[in-house]
């Protein structure tokens, strides 16, 4: 019997004090604040992922599209301009408002031009 009481007494602990309501509210508020911050970070991560995916798609589109891509002028363009088959304003090389033989000449000059040599 004595042993029982001794063991029981050894297991007894002081009861935890009552937590004031203000402490509970503060802990709850901190948790809510952390949850809000986590949610904001998660939203930003989604936006970043979506933006990266959009960039990749735009890059792929730019890479595969062919129509409308600027192309270097060549002798076929010069021939069409010289023979009056081409009237597109982008072939107006001298900016005189007309697409004519002078522009064909300018195209030939342009396509045969060599880069300046380096001075040794």
């Amino acid at each position, binding site marked *: 019997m004595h042993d029982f009481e001794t063991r029981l007494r050894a297991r007894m602990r002081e009861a935890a004090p009552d937590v004031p309501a203000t402490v509970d509210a503060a802990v709850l508020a901190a948790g809510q604040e952390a949850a809000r911050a986590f949610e904001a970070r998660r939203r930003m991560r989604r936006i970043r992922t979506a933006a990266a995916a959009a960039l990749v798609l735009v890059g792929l589109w730019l890479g595969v599209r062919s129509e409308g891509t600027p192309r270097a002028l*060549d*002798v*076929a*363009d*010069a*021939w*069409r301009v*010289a*023979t*009056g*088959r*081409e009237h597109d304003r982008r072939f107006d090389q001298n900016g005189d408002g007309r697409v004519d*033989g002078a522009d*064909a000449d300018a195209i*030939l*000059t342009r*396509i*045969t*031009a*060599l880069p*300046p*040599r380096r001075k040794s």
Partner: protein
Amino acid sequence: MKVVGTRAMALVALLATAAWHMPQDPAQAPADAALQRTGTTFVAVDVFVDAGTNALAAWQAELRFADSKLVGIEGGAVQAFAEPPRYDPAALQGGRVVLAALAAGGAEGGPEGGADAGLPSGRVRVARLHLLAPAKGPGEPTVDGVVAADADGERIEVDVEVRRKEGK
């Protein structure tokens, strides 16, 4: 009378001897000697374009010579490309040149001036280049950036060949 005849004969003999020893072209001998000293020679190479069954209205190509210097450019063997092709004068004394030419006549004819009138087809010589090359001859040139067009201005497939001119 006899004295005059003897003097005339002596003068003729003197002139004949002088003419025998005089070089054919006074400027040629020093030039040849200079070429021999530098181990170089002048070489002409022909540029051919083979358009197959298409009419060749315009062509361009970039040529690179690793061991030779360009010193002159002539036109081709057909009427349409008899004029020298367009090139940048800066290419002279260098080993790289971009040549481009529009067929004469066809361009003047305009769109209604007969589609293939006067335009060559098949393999034609479109230019001749003069090079200052090593004495053993120029190396194989690199041909790049070939573009050609038919009478309608459509791009066509062609073969460009550069060959050393045969004969002197």
